[in-house]
């Protein structure tokens, strides 16, 4: 029943999309009617997902589509419901925002955008409920395709085209890997339903191959280093609501796939599988956050921070598999909880931030941090709502980012019970890296927020910046609310997620305390965290202080020019730039970056300082790769060199060789 509802809603999304073609040029029709409608459907989808999660049951459905022997199988189980909730809830806010965001003259016509956007949504939903390899892959590629068209909305800009190309290429290669992975998993049964795959008994070698193929395929979509290169190109290129969707939701579909294959379809995982995503994930955390710290383009910065968060998620997946493979079910469930929780959090936080940058972009037409600043005065709504996202993603209590990190660290603390000695040595490193990553994320976010919204405007034009419209406000507010709710009611969320852990791990994390407000998930350990109390206590203290201060000393507050050590002539150019803020990181981790500097010469009339930072990965991996293909292509071209005699010689030689073969065999 619920599944039917989901299908109906997804089809509804598609319908809305095509409705956009009715009046492709009308901003009002698409923006004020269709997009809000889509948002409503999103919320409905979230509700359905929540309902099925609460029920914890499994529904199946078979549609007479697809391959002749293989009709389209659909399935709604706790795992997919969680991600449906994620998709629906966050897309609700994003769609509302998008309704106000898309204007005419953005390159592609609004109607067409509406079509691509809603097809994107629908295909993501379809990925989540697909229950056979074929429909999964179709939806998967449809998702990539629609988002590609959204990315290249402003296709007149060469960089954007390049980004789109890179994106679609990586997506396609990843999809082929998944295809091969499914080819392995069908295990000779030639039934491509997930059901058959669960039943198939694979030899360890084949199973491992399938797992690694899946890791490559889904990692490429999720942005796992070193397969992440498309991400910092594509996310900034896309219109902000699309960046929000891609970063907040699409990456999570990859996580969904990873969980589905690694923990569900392949049966009980082998413990060492987990080490691969664990190590890659840890490296990704570090890599992503470092590059985020040195960015000067606000959307690139957020994109790299997405890479970091994906690293956290994959670390969680790795831990889960290691634990599950070693038979420590409850702890595995805990790690899985952390993973899922972080997915939910990131969906809300990152969408919120991307939408915030979108409003800034609209108001100022500026993406370069070096030309922003002081916007908290011009656009308070965006600034204050974005602040919540900033604090949340910096992992500060009592917001949601902290909860998932707390859970992750807690599950790390169990690792010393693992039966594998050298993993035990790996774990402390892991913990340290996670903690370091979290701290660095704080650094990045302070830079992000401080440079955009605080200080003095770095350009005169910023004085005309305007706050966002009401639809955008509602969208932003919704997402911010999500961050708060996830932060304050972890117990309820975790309770809901229990169905998933039961499904995948076969265990639930017990709730040690009786209080509704107290999160005490770790069995046998006096460990707890009560965000509500925490928040109330903080608020109480703060308000009390404020009150006391007001009561005791009623002095008036005088406004005056900034003191600045009495320096006087203070100009915006004296503020620290984004480059400057990233300088310590650049200095400390030089070896990570591929830096090219342009320093002013002595006695330079117009001294200019420019610094460009690229990823070494290009020089180390991708450029050699394309170079190799280039060389091969040139070699192959020698074959085709125009002379008919030579061509005849080919045929002749082939003939003789084959004849010889035929004779000898």
């Amino acid at each position: 029943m619920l599944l039917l509802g989901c299908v109906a809603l997804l089809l509804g999304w598609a319908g809305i999309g095509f409705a956009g073609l009715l009046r492709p040029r009308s901003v009002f029709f698409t923006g004020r009617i269709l997009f809000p409608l889509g948002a409503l459907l999103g919320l409905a989808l979230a509700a359905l997902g929540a309902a099925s999660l609460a029920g914890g049951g499994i529904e199946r459905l078979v549609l007479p589509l697809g391959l002749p022997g293989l009709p389209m199988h659909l399935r709604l189980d706790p795992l997919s419901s969680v991600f449906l909730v994620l998709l629906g809830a966050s897309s609700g806010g994003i769609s509302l925002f998008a309704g106000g965001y898309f204007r005419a003259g953005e390159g592609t016509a609004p109607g067409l955008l509406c079509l691509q956007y809603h097809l994107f949504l629908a295909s993501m939903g379809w990925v989540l409920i697909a229950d056979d390899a074929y429909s999964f892959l179709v939806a998967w590629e449809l998702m990539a395709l629609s988002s590609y068209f959204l990315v290249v909305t402003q296709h007149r800009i060469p960089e954007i085209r390049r980004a789109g190309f890179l994106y679609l290429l990586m997506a396609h290669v990843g999809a082929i890997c998944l295809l091969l992975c499914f080819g392995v998993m069908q295990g000779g049964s030639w039934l491509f339903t997930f059901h058959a795959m669960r039943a198939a008994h694979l030899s360890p070698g084949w199973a491992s191959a399938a797992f690694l193929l899946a890791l490559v395929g889904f990692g490429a979509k999720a942005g796992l280093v070193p397969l992440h290169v498309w991400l910092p190109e594509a996310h900034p290129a896309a219109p902000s609501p699309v960046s929000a969707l891609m970063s907040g939701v699409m990456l999570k579909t990859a996580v969904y796939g990873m969980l589905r294959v690694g923990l569900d379809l392949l049966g009980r995982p082998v413990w060492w599988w987990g080490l691969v995503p664990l190590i890659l994930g840890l490296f990704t955390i570090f890599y992503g956050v470092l590059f985020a710290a040195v960015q000067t383009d606000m959307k690139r910065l957020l994109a790299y921070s997405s890479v970091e968060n994906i690293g956290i998620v994959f670390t969680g997946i790795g831990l889960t598999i290691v634990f599950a493979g070693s038979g420590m079910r409850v702890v595995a469930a805990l790690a899985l909880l952390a993973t899922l929780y972080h997915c939910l959090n990131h969906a809300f936080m990152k969408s919120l931030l991307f939408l915030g940058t979108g409003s800034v972009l609209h108001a100022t037409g500026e993406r370069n941090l070096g030309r922003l600043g002081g916007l908290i005065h011009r656009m308070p709504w965006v600034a204050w709502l974005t602040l919540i996202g900033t604090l949340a993603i910096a992992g500060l209590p009592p917001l949601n980012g902290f909860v998932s990190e707390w859970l992750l660290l807690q599950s790390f603390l169990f690792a010393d019970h693992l039966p594998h000695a050298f993993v035990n040595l790996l774990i402390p490193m892991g913990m340290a890296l996670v903690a370091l990553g979290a701290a660095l994320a704080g650094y990045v976010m302070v830079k992000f927020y401080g440079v955009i919204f605080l200080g003095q405007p770095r350009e005169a034009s910023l004085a005309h910046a305007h706050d966002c419209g009401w639809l955008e406000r509602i969208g932003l507010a919704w997402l911010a609310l999500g961050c708060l709710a996830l932060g304050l009611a972890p117990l309820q969320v975790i309770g809901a997620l229990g169905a998933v852990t039961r499904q995948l791990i076969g265990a639930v994390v017990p709730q040690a305390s009786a209080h509704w407000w107290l999160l005490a998930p770790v069995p046998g350990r006096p460990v707890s965290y009560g965000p509500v109390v925490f928040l109330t206590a903080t608020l109480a203290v703060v308000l009390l202080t404020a009150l006391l201060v007001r009561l005791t000393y009623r002095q008036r507050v005088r406004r005056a020019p900034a003191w600045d050590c009495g320096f006087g002539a203070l100009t915006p150019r004296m503020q620290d730039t984004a480059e400057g803020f990233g300088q310590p990181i650049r200095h400390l981790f030089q070896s990570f970056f591929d830096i090219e500097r342009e320093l002013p010469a002595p006695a330079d009339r117009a001294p200019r300082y420019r610094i460009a930072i690229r990823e070494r990965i290009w020089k180390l991996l991708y450029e050699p790769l394309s170079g190799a293909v280039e060389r091969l292509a040139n070699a192959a071209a020698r074959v085709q060199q125009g002379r008919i005699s030579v061509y005849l010689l080919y045929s002749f030689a082939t003939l003789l060789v084959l004849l010889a073969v035929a004779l000898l065999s």
Partner: protein
Amino acid sequence: MELLLLLTLPVAGAALLGLIGADRRAPEVNALLSLGTFLAACALTVRVIRHGDLLLGQEQFFIDPFNVFLVTLTAFVGLTTALFSRPYMRVELEHGRLTPGRLRLYHSMYQLFMFTMLLALTTNNMGLMWVAMEGATLSTVLLVTLYRTPGSLEAGWKYFILCGVGIAQALFGTILLYVAAGKVLGAQGMTALLWTHLDAVKTQLEPTVLALAFVFLLIGYGTKVGLVPLHSWLPDAHAEGPTPISAVLSGLLLNVALYAVVRSKVLVEGSLHSQLPSMMLMGFGLLSVVLASLLLWRQRDIKRLFAYSSIEHMGIATFAFGMGGAIANFAALLHMTVHSLTKSSIFFTAGHAAQKTGTQAMERIRGLITLSPTVGWGLMLGSLAILGVPPFGVFTSEFLILTTAMRTQPWAAPILLAALAVAFAAIFSKVQPMVFGETTGRRLAHPPALLPVFAHLAIVLLLGLYIPPYLAEWYRAAAHLIGGP
């Protein structure tokens, strides 16, 4: 009856257009004739569905699931191409690239070409099949050189010589078959070359001779399929001829040639009891995929680009036939279908693009989507389809082929993966800037004839999402017919 119509209409058409081919209404006549052929094909199909296999004309003609859907496909693409060539050739005429005389040649040869292909598909006699294939070469070679440019002449010459030589090998192979069969069937004359009879006794045929025969046939027809390293003629012929001809060459002729190869493979495998033919097909297939995808990297000419992609896809289909087995054969047949539909539609749009921008050089074709949205989207979607992006049918076949390969021939899977990735990068990196970005070129008076394009793409899309049961039944029957390990 239908068969008679199917075969006579094109011949009559060839004669008729040979007379009035330069006339103003000749294109319409051409289209009408093709329509008639198509209808006849449909009727034939219906009849086969109703009554099963057909043996006609003293067993000279044999219709079974394997060839009947190819017949329909051929007639259909023939029709759409005729529709497309109406405005296209008119524009060419106005640009002065053609004289009325050559237009006459074009029209009459077009019909003749259709005839030879249909004959090759429907005949039961391996000898006649050979004759028809040679006829196909001869009828198209003058079409390739239609523009009389140096390039087209060179292309035509290479096409003629290479295919001629190849086809001679095929003749020798046919003779060997005849010899081997004559031994068993005893009777001289007709029956010994009839495929049905050969198929009946294939297990008793002398293995070594049949192996040799297969090699000759493979070289012969494989040249026409465009299997590396026998492919050298293909890109030239596709790039230099007029676009409708490129479309039918790539969309139909290759299929027919592959059909011939598979027919012979069925016989040989029956007698050989060895992996030899399969291994040969797989080897050729992989080689074609790899080399084509590498050469795609360097293309500058839009039609040449897609010619190489045809080689690649024929390679995939050949590889699948080589793997054999129900699923792989099924997938290969499906792949032949969707490839011919998609590729011809791509050639249509490419032709329009070339006309609108006045060049086939890709770096001078830009921003089609602003120049003419339909052409732009047509090219974009067509390319995505041919690159195996769902929900288009090419993905369906590649899905089955790759999964099968992963299970049965794991060694080949990584090679295919790499080749497909390279091909994707190569084609898409060239198509994207052609479709998007700032535009070059001018609008033409003539509206593009995009009905064929989108008709094809619609069918491909349908096949990607839903394969009608009776079609699936055909494929299954055909796949079963082809058999394999």
